[in-house]
């Protein structure tokens, strides 16, 4: 009964962090001078914990129950009915648990990580905004409101990445994150606008029904579907909109935990929800697989060439989201969601453990680290757990997700399965490389002194490691693991072999150090990967450059042609400001008085008829 009530009121969950956000806005600089910045963080921690507990308790009431729908009226105008539909089901409540849980750990982690920072109020307010936004996104069952949330989160990304706003790289990173995501959002908006006249609804459930019988011109369907894909492409940092995730690494690390695990997944979530509509266009499905495949292979390759530990992980995020794109493109939405879940936990753990290294070694340059295994056993173990949880190695989570995906792809698209195996091997190689560069080898100057961190950092990291380790058990208890009897054992073996291949190769090079570093591959290729296929440069010389040039041309034309013409006609030159100098105060008042007098006289003249009608006694 109690659980039922909590499930019914699941819409409280996004409200808790929202309240926390509003409360922490109250910590103005003047208030901080009296209380210090910390209470703003504690308030949010408490609200997040409440949200998490609410979601956990509500889960039992939704498990094995049909989805319930709630409707909150928002706006009804003309023939447009904007009601907020909420879906309360095991999947959405499970999503809430994931988001609030990772948020809680990340906020806890931030207590230690940002110990010396004064910007707590701003930071926690923004984390809370993200939490509220993601919870709202999960619950709301409408494309329109999903778009609203995604767009607000785009603004949140801008402010969160720009948290340390006096550093130039941070400012440009925030700018690029905002604009790249905005480009995706605007295409999504175009899709949203175009879909309504076709389907007459934005409700995901009704869209699914509509898509089953819809007769849409294939060209229109393709255009709409491609526009709808563009939004998630920006959010999931897919090629060619992937650049922002790399630059977002300038933001504070605790926010990276969230960004790399659940924030990027917002795009995947919308994509999964839209899957029935996207299925109307075979071109769009193929495009999704192509985008996902390019991003997955490109992302893992680039990740291997990075020497910045945060970037080495962030490109893996793009790659895994690419796998999700492949899954949705192949209409394997269950596999997609499962992969989002397993990736979120493992990646959050990886970011937490590397953050724990970065914080007290004061560098995120992999070439300056090494030999930390004996000094940082807890962090090292957490990293290993995260790494193994990320790649396809049983019994940890991602193995099951990838197995499901490969299994579904095998019959129809064997080539994509090959891509999946390559990506998995490259990822395994990549994480092993990072592990080797941080924990194996000789200690360097920056890693000479390195104790484990404060408990506020280590504790959430260990809890996250525990969750990652227990994920298969949780999946099993929810009967989300495949039955042993029908398991595709060949596929499982292939996945395991690809993982082992990647790990061993990485181990030989970076742990065993059989080859001297940096590994001598062809320099142009290494630069190509290290500089992200030169994407920033390509952007700068094409889109950014052309907008800049066009705006200058328009401005020039505006000043000298459009306005110049006007001035030339002579209006301004006759009465130009130079000749009429109103600096002299007496003259202007004189003018004003003249004008006022004129107005009065004219008014009296024009009103003469009324005045005579009024029949004053004097006039008689």
């Amino acid at each position, binding site marked *: 009964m109690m659980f039922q009530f909590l499930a019914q009121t699941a819409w409280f969950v996004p409200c808790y962090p929202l309240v926390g956000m509003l409360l922490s806005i109250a910590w103005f600089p003047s208030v901080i001078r009296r209380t210090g910045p910390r209470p703003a963080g504690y308030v949010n921690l408490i609200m997040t914990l409440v949200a998490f507990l609410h979601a956990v308790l509500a889960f039992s009431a939704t498990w094995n129950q049909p989805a319930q729908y709630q409707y909150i009226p928002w*706006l009804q105008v003309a023939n447009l009915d904007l009601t907020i539909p909420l879906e309360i089901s095991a999947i959405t409540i499970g999503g809430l648990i994931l988001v609030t849980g990772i948020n809680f750990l990340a906020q806890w982690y931030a207590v230690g990580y940002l110990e010396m920072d004064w910007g707590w109020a701003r930071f926690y307010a923004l984390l809370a905004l993200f939490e509220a936004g993601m919870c709202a996104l999960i619950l709301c069952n409408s494309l329109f409101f999903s778009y609203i949330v995604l767009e607000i989160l785009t603004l949140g990304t801008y402010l969160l990445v720009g948290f340390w*706003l006096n550093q130039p790289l941070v400012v440009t990173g*925030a700018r690029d994150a905002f604009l790249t995501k905005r480009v995706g959002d605007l295409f999504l908006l175009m899709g949203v606008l175009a879909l309504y006249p076709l389907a007459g609804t934005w409700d995901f459930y009704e869209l699914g029904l509509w898509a089953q019988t819809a007769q849409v011109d294939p060209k229109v369907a393709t255009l709409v579907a491609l526009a709808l894909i563009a939004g998630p492409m920006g959010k999931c940092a897919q090629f060619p909109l992937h650049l922002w995730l790399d630059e977002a690494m300038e933001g504070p690390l605790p926010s990276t935990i969230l960004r790399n695990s659940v924030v990027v997944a917002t795009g995947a979530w919308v994509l999964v929800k839209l899957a029935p509509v996207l299925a109307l266009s075979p071109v769009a499905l193929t495009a999704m697989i192509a985008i996902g495949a390019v991003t997955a292979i490109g992302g893992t390759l680039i990740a291997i060439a990075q020497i910045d530990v945060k970037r080495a992980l962030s490109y893996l995020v793009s790659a895994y989201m690419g796998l999700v794109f492949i899954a949705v493109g192949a209409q394997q939405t269950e596999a997609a969601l499962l992969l989002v879940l397993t990736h979120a936990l493992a990646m959050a753990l990886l970011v937490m453990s590397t953050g724990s290294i970065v914080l007290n070694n004061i560098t995120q340059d992999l070439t300056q680290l090494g030999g930390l295994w004996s000094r940082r056993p807890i962090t090292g173990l957490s990293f290993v757990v995260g790494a193994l949880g990320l790649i396809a190695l049983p019994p940890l989570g991602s193995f099951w997700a990838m197995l499901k995906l490969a299994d579904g792809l095998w019959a129809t698209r064997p080539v994509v399965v090959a891509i999946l195996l390559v990506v998995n091997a490259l990822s395994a190689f990549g994480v092993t490389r990072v592990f080797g560069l941080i924990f194996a080898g000789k200690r360097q100057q920056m890693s000479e002194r390195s104790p484990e961190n404060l408990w506020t950092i280590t504790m959430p990291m260990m809890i996250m490691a525990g969750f990652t380790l227990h994920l298969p058990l949780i999946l099993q208890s929810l009967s989300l693991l495949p039955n042993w009897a029908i398991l595709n054992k060949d596929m499982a073996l292939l996945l395991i072999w690809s993982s082992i291949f990647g790990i061993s190769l990485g181990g030989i090079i970076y742990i065993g150090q059989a080859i001297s570093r940096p590994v001598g591959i062809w320099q142009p290729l290494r630069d190509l990967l290290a500089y992200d296929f030169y994407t920033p440069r390509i952007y700068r010389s094409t889109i950014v450059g052309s907008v800049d040039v066009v705006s200058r041309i*328009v*401005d020039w034309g*505006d000043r000298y042609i459009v306005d110049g013409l006007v001035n030339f006609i002579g209006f301004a030159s006759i009465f130009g*400001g130079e000749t009429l100098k109103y600096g002299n105060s007496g003259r*202007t008042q004189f003018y004003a008085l003249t004008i006022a007098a004129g107005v009065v006289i004219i008014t009296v003249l024009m009103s003469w008829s009324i005045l005579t009608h009024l029949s004053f006694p004097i006039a008689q």
Partner: protein
Amino acid sequence: MLSVLIWLPILGAAIIGFLPGIFSAKQVRTGALAITGAVLAWTIFLMTQFDPSNSGLQLQEYLPWIETLGLNYQLGVDGLSLVLLALNSLLTWIAVFSSKVEIERPRLFYALILLISGGVAGAFLAQNLLLFFLFYELELVPFYLLISIWGGSKRGYAATKFLIYTATSGALILAGFLGLILLTGASSFAYESLAGQALPLGLQVILLGVLLVGFGIKIPLVPLHTWLPDTYVEASTPVAILLGGVLAKLGTYGIFRFGLGLFPDAWRVLAPWLAIWAAVSVLYGAIAAIAQKDIKRMVAYSSIGHMGYVLLGGAAATELSLVGAVSQMVAHGLILAILFNLVGIIEAKVGTRELDVLNGLMNPIRGLPTISSLLVVGAMASAGIPGMAGFIAEFLVFQGSFVAFPLQTLLCVAGTGLTAVYFVILLNRTCFGKLDNAIAYFPKVEFSEKLPAFILVALIFFLGVQPTWLVRWSEPTTNAMVAAVPAGSVLGRVGGDRPIATPPELIPMATIPTLEP
């Protein structure tokens, strides 16, 4: 009832203007605040008296004036004018509040602002073409004086330019009105006497074109806009708030009331071109804004782009797009007011508006953190981030226009992307970055200086989260306006190359709600 909105400020202007010189600038300001506050309160009272479900004219007033001319003092309010009246009353109060406390020649300054308030209210209330025109022209001189006395360094040039442009606009509108009356042979200038009059389509198109150019200067639409950047930049903060927040709305109000309202058939003919014009304005304003180095100028250009959405919504003339366009007028007024207010504060405290000089104002200790945060909110509201008033208005315009003009709508959507570009440039340079400690000795921003921005932010958020309050006033009226437009798909009826001079078929003009006796 309605006359109060006109005559209270004008009476106040007279009182303040002729006060003896013994009162300090601060006392005069308090007086002006009291009067504008009373006007605002009266507007709110009128809103409670207004029946939003009624699409026709309400609270009408009639007084015969020069009947031989067909000019009568005839007022009324419907959903279209009500929201703009509210915007006018609010922004006038905000403008007075944003004025410098120790302003020079306070009596003249506040008197002129009050005069503008009364005049604008009159234009929104007038139900007679000539009366509208008188009130429309009444703004001109006070604005001219406000710019040329209290403006920036190039104020003389800007004021003259404004005067000439606006006078041209007035002349065109008068020509349009006179042409309309003479050609139809209507008995008076009253709106309702035009009901049921017929006019050949070709003539309608010509008259509409004249009015469009006339009002297009006021909005302004590209390429009639070049007075705007100079004027907005040279005008002081309160005057810029009134110019951008209220005066520009007279242009769109005129286009809707007289263009769409009186010439629905001609509107149909011109609609595709109007939508293209809107898209051009949107893109042009946004692209030109990107290249600006002066934040006030950037905001001024952004205004050109945002008024383009209003025209787009009007051109499509669907129920949704029209209510969206009216909402956009209100949202744009609020957002532009807060942007000008904040830019004014930054200029006053930091001493510059140059993007290349400004930096790091978000700094919590030595910068202007609250002002910067508010600027982030204002800029993002303008860039159309949901949760704020600008988004829902633009969205309604887009959704409503998409069915009629998909391509133009998509171009306008792209325009919102460019909006984000220049606002990010503005925020990155102004608020973010490293504050130069050597120059960071800014005067403290008093709470009273922030108050207008706080009020506006609260309204922007409230209307963004509860958009029902934005649309409920005008929806029945705009629905009725759309219903008056002949049925049939806009695209289906109007080919792009249809000659303007069609055979002289007589088409009845819009039926305008008649007066209750």
